[in-house]
């Protein structure tokens, strides 16, 4: 057991940081980050940025060589993700592409799909959105109602998706649609977002722009060859896909960076040195993030050792979320102007994290999973 970084891992982190320094515009923090990574501005920027990352071998280094990767170690892939998130995620929505859409298509896509989409993702120029949630099917995804009915060599899709981040700017949608009568008769379709019959409505909210979209499908014709895997195989494939997102966003990393910004502001305003309560609270929150960090690293370590997946990934998300909640409360109590004309980076942090317990798997479901599968408690 040891907890340090190997020299090559530290060098890799420095290489990623150097690439960020080189590729991000001088006004990145001032102009881009406050808009948030789902904004049209950042999504457009990501096409340019990810293409350059690809040229430097930093977009899909963890992928197999036959798909343009370098089969880099799991820790390097993770370090890359930490640094990108810490910089405000200049990959925009393309983190999804490289983390799970690409690998899922490698495993389940047809040769034609691999040729088109996996290559497209590796080029860094294609934007995807995720067509999962619906107005009446979020956490309970199997309740989704969007239907895809077979009509010759096409499916005809009708229904709607909601909370579809990046929908306005996406080229493709990774869509889940019902293709049969039972709860689990769901299939995956790859749908070009410029297909006739698709319309998008954006609506305002307390989180940052770009996430709150509703996508309507009205008699949208999708070729059968755009289906991934067999009809009704969506659950198996989505389970596989999500195994690539086991630990999710490294919230301890972004959290500690935000906490540091808050401390800098408190110092500059003379509210740090003489206020032991503020300092103590900040220190306690840092400890919570450090705990969450180690639970997250444990999951990566299990992957490195090729151990079977457990609910430890869910546990790491739970611990991270508690620390995030503490930090948001700290900001609300001691740095309230972050939501009223103060530091735009802190505002961005706060607003991105308002749905932190909902996105990527609702916290209550994470708790259920750990309770029942991890701790062996009986179902109610």
């Amino acid at each position, binding site marked *: 057991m040891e*907890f340090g970084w190997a020299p090559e891992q530290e060098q890799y982190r420095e290489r990623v940081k150097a690439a960020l320094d080189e590729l991000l515009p001088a006004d990145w923090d001032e102009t881009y980050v406050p808009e948030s990574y789902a904004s049209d501005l950042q999504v457009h920027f990501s096409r340019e940025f990810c293409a350059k990352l690809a040229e430097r071998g930093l977009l899909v280094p963890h992928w197999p060589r036959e798909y343009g990767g370098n089969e880099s170690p799991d820790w390097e892939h993770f370090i890359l993700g930490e640094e990108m998130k810490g910089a405000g995620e200049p990959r925009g929505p393309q983190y999804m592409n490289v983390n799970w859409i690409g690998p899922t298509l490698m495993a389940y896509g047809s040769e034609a799909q691999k040729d088109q989409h996996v290559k497209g993702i590796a080029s860094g120029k294609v934007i995807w959105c995720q067509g999962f949630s619906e107005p009446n099917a979020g956490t309970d995804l199997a309740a989704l109602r969007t239907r895809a009915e077979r009509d010759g060599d096409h499916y005809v899709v009708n229904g709607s998706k909601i909370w579809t981040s990046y929908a306005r700017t996406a080229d493709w949608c990774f869509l889940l649609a019902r293709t049969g009568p039972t709860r689990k008769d769901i299939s995956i379709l790859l749908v070009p977002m410029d297909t006739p019959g698709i319309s998008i409505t954006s609506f305002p909210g307390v989180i940052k722009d770009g996430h709150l979209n509703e996508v309507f499908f009205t008699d949208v014709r999708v070729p059968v060859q755009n289906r991934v895997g067999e009809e009704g195989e969506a659950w198996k494939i989505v389970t596989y896909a999500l195994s690539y997102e086991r630990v999710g966003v490294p919230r301890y990393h972004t959290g500690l960076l935000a906490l540091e910004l808050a401390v800098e502001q408190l110092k500059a305003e003379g509210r740090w040195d003489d206020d*032991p309560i503020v*300092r103590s609270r900040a220190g306690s929150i840092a*400890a919570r993030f*450090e705990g969450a960090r180690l639970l997250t690293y444990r999951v990566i370590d299990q992957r490195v050792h090729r151990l079977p997946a457990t609910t430890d990934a869910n546990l790491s998300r739970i611990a991270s979320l508690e620390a995030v909640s503490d930090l948001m409360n700290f900001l609300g109590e001691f740095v309230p102007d972050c939501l009223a004309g103060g530091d735009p980076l802190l505002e961005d942090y706060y607003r991105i994290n308002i749905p932190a317990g909902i996105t990527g798997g609702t916290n209550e479901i994470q708790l259920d999973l*750990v*309770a029942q599968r991890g*701790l062996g*408690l009986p179902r109610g």
Partner: protein
Amino acid sequence: MDFQLSEDQEALVSALQSILQDHAELPQAERFSYSYFNADLQRLLGESGFLGAARDIGPLEAALVTIETARLPVLVETAATGLVAPMLLPADGPVDGPVALIAGGAIGKAHRNLPIARTALVDLGEDVAVLTIDPADVEPVASILAYPYGRFRAIPDLAAARRLPGAGARLRQWWRVALAAEVAGAAQAALDFTLDYVKQRQVFGRPVGSFQSVQHRLVQCHAHAQSTYYLALRAAWSGEAVDADCAASLAQQGVQKLLFDLHQFHGGMGVTTEHLLHFWLYRIRALQAEAGGVHGIGLEIAGRMWPAATQATGADAAPQIAEAG
């Protein structure tokens, strides 16, 4: 980065567990005690070399010993004896144990483990005093906290004691690692005990543990125990003061939730001494305020991570005790 125990570490833990299994039972006469110190097991651990792990192998292995022994309902003192003292006094050879750790500013009050101690390390802020303890000088103090407590019949003369100049910060650092390791082991044992209970105990025709309101809180306790475990081991591995602070801070931050929730899920049984729960919970409670407590340690973390021009690290948490006593 490697979160798996090495083969040698696995062997150490496995050998330790095989000894502990034979001594986990409480004697019938101690069935209703608030704490029970097993002197035979303490001696056996010393003779078997487990209390020398910090010197012979390293502090991470000593922390593993503390975590494992903290899982027992019976008490042995491995945290201060096997981890703190060897890290503070590396040149001394084995210290006469058990060792008690004492905050100098409160020397007149009751102290954890003082009735069983042969040596005490007293935190004077900047310095450390090393006291040899004669049991005749200690008056036992009754407490529900699951350690033997006692106070000095007469305040010892710290000025005459052996003094370790400038060792206070190092004492607090390893005290924090040790208390985090102890909380990690005790919390995990209390949680395991509770999980067994809520799977069996029926209310309204179903197990207590099938209620979502119970499940979610148990998972949060589990997250706390697991985080504390890794933070304690990282702090032992790195020897970095800030890692020790984070480990102890998190350990102590979770005390409120652990105590409330685990008591709650045992209902009336959990408040009786015939139920074992109190052995772990009131060890955790006893550790809540030590080595600075959440507030003091939070200040130290802030001081290390974001030092202020006017702020000396640790100044808030550990004022110098000029001549305590």
